[in-house]
């Protein structure tokens, strides 16, 4: 009984800790202030930019992660362990360092050639997407690999014994059984990309109405001691992030066979 009470109290304390941070925002929020900030062109630009960049980054990450995660889940091949370790780099290296690495890469002859002949990435919207993409790719691969791991390989073997080609078996058996996990991976990657700051500011800078994502907008408002504006933007960011997490929980939590 004591264990039950102690653990539940601890769980509530965790909630209280984060809850108090959210409640504190209310001190600086007035309805008319929120309305003013949320309808301003600059804020709307930041929201649109963040949503678009996060969607492109998470979408690209999932598209690339699916084949990579499938290979890591199903095959034993040279370099597998190295790839798995590298994919975890965004989890252990700070986003700022990752962004700095990107910036250094684009000052390298290969990076400069890419910028000259393909497209400009530093201080552009494309740079924002690239920074977010690199930050969430590892997470996407890891989550999607788990989704594929949960589909028994024997189902594919049986499908092939029934005459299905590897791709037919993948599209008719593996993908339908893993899609909830893949969708949850997209949502979580999207939420992570939405809140990405360190790598974005390194590669895309803090250019108002150009590379000003929501986290960068928060940073800029705070830098000018605009606490009301900062609080309003935080509410928007937290609202979007928590909604995404709730959605991911709903998607991933449902039974595969329901």
């Amino acid at each position, binding site marked *: 009984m004591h264990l039950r009470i102690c653990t539940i109290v601890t769980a509530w304390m965790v909630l209280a800790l984060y809850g108090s941070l959210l409640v504190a925002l209310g001190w600086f929020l007035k309805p008319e202030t929120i309305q003013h900030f949320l309808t301003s062109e600059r804020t709307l630009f930041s929201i649109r930019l963040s949503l678009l960049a996060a969607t492109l980054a998470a979408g690209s990450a999932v598209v690339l992660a699916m084949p990579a995660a499938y290979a890591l889940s199903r095959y034993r091949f040279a370099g597998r362990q190295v790839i798995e370790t590298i994919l975890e780099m965004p989890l252990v290296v700070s986003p700022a360092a990752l962004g700095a690495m990107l910036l250094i890469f684009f000052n390298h002859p290969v990076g400069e050639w890419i910028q000259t002949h393909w497209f400009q990435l530093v201080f552009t919207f494309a740079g924002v997407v690239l920074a977010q993409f690199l930050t969430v790719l590892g997470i996407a691969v890891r989550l999607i690999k788990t989704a594929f791991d949960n589909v028994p390989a*024997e189902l594919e073997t*049986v499908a092939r*014994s029934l*005459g299905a080609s590897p791709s037919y078996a993948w599209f008719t058996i593996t993908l339908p*059984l893993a899609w909830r996990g893949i969708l949850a991976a997209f949502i979580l990657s999207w939420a992570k990309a939405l809140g990405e700051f360190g790598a974005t500011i390194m590669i895309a800078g803090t250019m108002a109405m150009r590379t000003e994502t929501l986290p960068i907008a928060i940073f800029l408002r705070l830098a000018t001691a605009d606490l009301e504006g900062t609080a309003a933007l935080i509410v928007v960011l937290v609202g979007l992030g928590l909604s995404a997490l709730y959605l991911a929980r709903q998607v991933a939590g449902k039974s595969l066979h329901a």
Partner: protein
Amino acid sequence: MLEIDSLRVVAGTFQLGDVTIHIRPGGCHVVLGPSGSGKSTLLQAVLGALPLIHGSIRLDGVDLTQLPLERRQLGYLPQQLALFPHLSVRENLLYSARARGLSAAQYEPLLARLISATRIESMLERRPATLSGGEQQRVGLVRALMGRPRLLLLDEPFSALNESLRRELWWLLRAIQKEEQFAILMVTHDLAEAYVLADELTVLAHGQVIQQGSKTEVYARPASPDVARLFGVETLYPGRILEIRDGLATVAVGSAQLLAPVPDRISTKILVSIRGEDVMLQPGPCPATSARNNLSGWITAIRPGTPLSVIELDVGFPLTALITRSACEELGLQCGTRVTALIKASAVHLIPLT
């Protein structure tokens, strides 16, 4: 006709040694062995999920090793059945036809025949998770047969079922096989299953074939102590051949002597193998009978069972007899009762040890 010749497969650190198996159309070959003996590795190699190191696999003259898994025209029913959980039973059954792009006219007659034979009409719109174990087995079997396989690979598919359901499915499988005339290669560690279904048996241990032959031959004349133990021979006791005369060997076993057919390979050190059901008991001294081995002794233990009770004897060596419970009661057998154990010479099998 399936012809597996000198097959060698490596799976991780495990190596499956030279395996040669031939199965005629309509035949059933069972590979028997304990866990880790290489049974499933063999099946995976034939299926095409594991590459061969050496050897060949030919089905009706076609070299299967040159074909990808989906073009080998095999039916495969794994232990976990692997029914597709997101598809209905009907969609599971039609998976093969759809993967091969067959029209309804091409698959409907076979589908109707198999559905009728397995009595699964009422469950076609259900999901596999809602079916009982026996129903899932029948669906798995029909799905595996929908591709008109020339060879059906079975990986202990009935092991999770209770005895009566398993028996029902054994007969169902043999009935369908008789009609469709496909060959079966099945792996199991279940003796009863192997004995009921097999025409021929291969016994594997530690990745090596330790005996092959017809089921009656392997059952009656295990070639090694491992096979005898696997086949549940009740009495295995070391002995020594004293002399050979008129095709019969006189063997010293403990303080007793037995007459037995001469083994294929002569060795002085042998293991005497006697099945419990081949031992008859007579209380007290025994009148003259045709049984060549009449051993006097007494009962050391009785383990009542249904329908057979296990009677442990001391006849100069430990001997186990299996007799019906009613016979045990009628003869008034108890611990300490003096009895004569009667064993025909042909029921004593000698396994050379060196």
